[in-house]
């Protein structure tokens, strides 16, 4: 017995370029020619793009020039990162943990770090460059950036030699252990049981409801201010 929604409103696809050409008022004085481009916006200059194009990809595209070692990175990390992330990436207080957690992913208490979870090392350099240190973003570049990232990878046992040099040349060769454990969204296959024709409407479960757990018992709802953290 299916509900009849009070009003069904088909949302048409947003207007593409064709729409105005078909339905808009052209100037009455002279019909507008069907146009391929609106001619709005100007060309972005190469130097403008260079200033903002800071992304790095796993294949190395976008890596900034520079080089560094974990040994050089340690001091920088201690000065600029450790206050939050701990001297060894173990985290100070509730700030994110950056290292550890190996072998924990299938456990009851997975610890997802660069070493234990992340699929690509390029993500570290990209992210630190764009977002860290927290509150002083986009301040790291060149050799300092490579050195800090090398130290973070060293903390994660991704590189084991403190003097191994990472650079825009060598960086793409750094591989992370967990890469193969990611797979693309497969819900439409693995969860196809959730597409049900006729969900049960009467006598779907036997017996009276039994309470298995109550949020009240856990008692972490504000204002209480205690309890587990989530990401």
């Amino acid at each position, binding site marked *: 017995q299916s509900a009849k929604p009070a009003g069904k409103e088909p949302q048409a696809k947003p207007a593409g370029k064709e729409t105005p050409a078909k339905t808009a008022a052209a100037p009455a004085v002279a019909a507008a020619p069907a146009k391929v481009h609106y001619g709005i916006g100007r060309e972005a200059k190469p130097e*403008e793009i260079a200033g903002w194009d800071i992304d790095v990809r796993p294949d190395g595209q976008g890596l900034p020039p520079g080089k560094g070692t974990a040994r050089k990175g340690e001091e920088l990390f201690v000065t600029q990162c450790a206050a939050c992330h701990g001297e060894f990436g173990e985290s100070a207080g*509730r700030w994110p943990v950056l290292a550890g957690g190996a072998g924990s992913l299938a456990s009851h208490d997975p610890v997802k770090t660069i070493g234990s979870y992340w699929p690509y090392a390029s993500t570290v350099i990209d992210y630190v460059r764009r*977002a860290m240190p927290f509150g002083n973003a986009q301040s790291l570049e060149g050799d300092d950036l490579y050195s800090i990232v090398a130290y973070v990878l060293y903390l994660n046992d991704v590189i084991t030699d403190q003097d191994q040099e990472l650079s825009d040349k060598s960086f793409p060769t750094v591989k992370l252990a967990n890469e193969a454990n990611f797979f693309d969204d497969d819900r439409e296959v693995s969860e196809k049981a959730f597409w049900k024709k006729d969900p049960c409407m009467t006598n779907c479960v036997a017996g009276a409801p039994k309470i298995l757990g109550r949020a*009240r018992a856990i008692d972490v*709802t504000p204002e209480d201010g205690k309890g587990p953290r989530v990401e």
Partner: protein
Amino acid sequence: AALGPGTAAVAAEPGNPANLPPNVPEWSKTLGDGVAVRAYGKPSKHEAHVIRRDVEWLTASRESSVSFTPLHELDGIITPNGLCFERHHSGIAELDPNDYRLMIHGLVDKPLMFTLQDLERLPRTNRVYFAECAANSGMEWRGAQMNACQFTHGMIHNVMYTGVPLRVLLEEAGLKTNAKWLLLEGADSAAMTRSLPLQKALDDCLIAFRMNGERLRPENGYPVRICVPGWEANMWVKWLRRIEVGDQPWHHREETSKYTDLLENGKARRFTYVMDAKSVITSPSPQTPFRHGRGFTVVSGIAWSGRGKVARVDVTLDGGRNWRTARIDGPVFDKSMVRFYAEFDWDGRELFLQSRAMDETGYVQPTKDELRKVRGVNSVYHNNGIQTWRVSPEGEVENVEIA
């Protein structure tokens, strides 16, 4: 006052007798504030409890945290702008709109730079979409934890956007034949990035500059954000400054470290974009219990699906033994919240309220156990399991899990 099962008390009538008939209250005698005294209005002082709230223990700092929409205090399908949940990764970027620029480059014929004024010269459209954080209900994977609808389900809002279809901008720049992915990047100090498949970009994404009629709010990306209808809100990059066109995804932090779904075997799903069909009863709920005693009453809630329109919502009063189809009331849009109601005569007995959404693709919102069976409890994201509220004979409501 607890009166035992089946004897729910009728609350005494509220109010100050001096203001009730036959008496005439002050506000019926004296002048109030004149027009335009409140040039930009705000809610009554008696609604000061209707606010976004955060959970202090969730994160180390409010600049990277979330605040929750008070769903239990809302009705209909529009979320007022001042109450839209927030998720920032480095606080609110406060842009001067004159300094706003959107850059489009990469695998395009001509890299382009747009001002805000430029965007408003292109054909625009108005659409109502929900934006739900993939981590909504993420605290409930292992069991009932947050005793408030605001905190179990409040990482969602539903807004009418005005914007330019992303397709228009991409066609203006001209796509190279090997274009397959887009990088979206924000101007906040997290420089938030996500990779977006080109097909979605050309389908229904909007470069939005207005919400519910007015300019975007600072906390929602002023002056420009992207809407990625039906997909997890983390992709709806705020303060959008740059779109790079490429031939492969970037695998950035928000699509590797975060927003990947760890399964029980240690493997993880990535690129889980679509928000599955979901619903929740917003009233009664722990923050808005039944205060009226027995009798006719209204159960009200919201439902949504990232796959299209909500087709139907069922409600149970007895914890899923028996279901009735609820009344959907108000507009039903594609990838938008709907509002549903189920009226009934409460005889004062204990209730186990649940709602179950179905969308036009035939997807049926699963129970939490059905979900855990496929995903385990470590996924963090995409928890769309059926919510149970227990109503006590006194009308109190609590978040429980039942068998």
